[in-house]
């Protein structure tokens, strides 16, 4: 089932095209990561999909409702928008009470406190938000997006400005919410975060999606080479020399030692061939490890600027 579908979605500010004919489909239940450098159009896309910004052209559908009927599904959507602030004289609990009423929900104080507990904000729930740090505000932003137990949750940079300990808490919360069946759409600069959390990833550059898929699909599409480490039985120097010559015809040999060898292959199909060859040469393989490309490498291969956490 499709949770979100965007068709030729475009946003222009004057002559500047921020999102350009973007087409995207997100399957229900997935954790979808939207990556891209600053100004790539990630936030503008979320803002269009959540009704904060009007698309210049194109259409979208969310939870089966067309973009112009977004009000019909608002109670099923949770949003942590970018650049948002809170009512200074409200506490975290006041905010959740107010927002739950705006959504038309009748939640008890206990239920709201539980949401604050989930984002590790329970201790500060009666503190006015004007006294909150940036990270605390971010957590409250996540809490307000979760009060309606949404079917689809949009998180725009959920961990930026948050301390390392809290990031782990937010990650586990995202996983928990996803496990309960919520589709999650998150944007991030943090490649490690996206790689760890997301089941599907799209890389956006200059308003368009440059590539999209699961991590393994992205690797197979964009990984230029694969490093293979082999732990094998003890071999003598003559065999080492022979293997170096013979295997050089098949793969790039980095090193062959008595018990370990290291190769670079161009694609995954060369790995079983390498293994087969070693077995044919009566070299017993104990362990074969493949070093997969990280998202950072894929980014680099795509020529997109990288910023790691």
């Amino acid at each position: 089932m499709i949770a979100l579908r965007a068709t030729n979605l475009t946003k222009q500010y004057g002559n500047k095209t921020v999102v350009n004919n973007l087409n995207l489909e997100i399957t229900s239940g997935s954790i979808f990561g939207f990556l891209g450098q600053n100004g790539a159009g990630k936030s503008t896309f979320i803002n269009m999909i959540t009704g904060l910004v009007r698309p210049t052209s194109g259409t979208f559908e969310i939870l089966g409702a067309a973009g112009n009927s977004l009000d019909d599904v608002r109670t099923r959507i949770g949003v942590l928008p970018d650049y948002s602030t809170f009512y200074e004289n409200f506490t975290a609990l006041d905010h959740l009470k107010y927002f739950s009423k705006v959504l038309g929900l009748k939640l008890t104080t206990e239920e709201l406190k539980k949401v604050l507990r989930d984002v590790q904000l329970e201790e500060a729930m009666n503190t006015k938000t004007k006294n909150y740090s940036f990270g605390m505000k971010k957590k409250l932003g996540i809490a307000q997006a979760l009060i309606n137990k949404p079917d689809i949750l949009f998180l725009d940079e959920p961990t930026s400005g948050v301390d390392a300990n809290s990031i782990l808490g937010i990650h586990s919360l995202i996983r928990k919410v996803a496990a309960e069946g919520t589709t999650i759409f998150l944007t991030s600069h943090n490649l490690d975060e996206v790689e760890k959390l997301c089941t599907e990833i799209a890389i956006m550059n200059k308003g368009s999606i440059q590539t999209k898929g699961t991590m393994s699909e992205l690797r197979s599409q964009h990984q230029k080479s694969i490093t293979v480490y082999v732990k094998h039985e003890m071999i003598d120097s003559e065999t080492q020399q022979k293997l170096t010559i013979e295997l050089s015809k098949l793969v790039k040999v980095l090193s062959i030692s008595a018990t370990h060898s290291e190769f670079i292959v161009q694609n995954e199909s060369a790995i079983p061939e390498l293994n087969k060859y070693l077995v044919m040469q009566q070299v017993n393989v104990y362990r074969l490890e493949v070093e997969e490309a990280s998202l950072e490498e894929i980014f680099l291969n795509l020529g997109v600027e990288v910023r790691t956490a």
Partner: protein
Amino acid sequence: MLAITLREFKSLFQSIRAIIIIVVLFGVTVGSAKLVSQFKSELSGLGLGDNAYVIGLMLLLFLAAPLFVTSISHSSVNKEMESKTIRFLATKTSRENIIFGKFLGNISFWVLCLSIALLLIVPFSKSFYFVDLIQSIIFVSYFIGLSLFLSTVVNNSSLTMFAGIVLSIALPVIGMWSLLSKNVAIDAISYLTPYFYYTHANTSYTYFVLIHTVVFVMLSLIIFKRRDL
């Protein structure tokens, strides 16, 4: 919508402004009632009613309500746009609910202030002027609609404060001027102010002012729906 209405109402009513407005409405109405009772026949000829207390209240509203209303309602939308708190609301409810909620919150505040002021006058006047209360509310609704419109069109709350002050001075002046002027342009503009309708011999004309209020609110909604937040 009800949640937004209540929050708007509470934020206005919990401030010192509510007490000041009630005290001013009550004090000036009672004080001016004593004064206007000397010119009762002249003022009632201008459509200001025939009760000294009502005349006092309406005079105060004619002259000061624009300033009162615009000073407290000029930033009801753009302040939230400046602070970006509107982004949370807009992802949780429709834009209609936001605009109508803000309008209803403001009007509720004024209904309460005017009602309390008129109730405080009862021991002096020995009666409660219900029809005059409705007419006062309609008069005030014009300026609430106008403030909401300004607040939706103009992003900067300082600018809407300034525009509100200018309009608070200009509208009563134009309204009163049109009563005496034979100038066609001034006459035409007077139809856009509430003063024309409130100074007409036929008091039912005052209800036409509601059309202006509705137009302001609908324009605010149309503009707000087209805005990127």
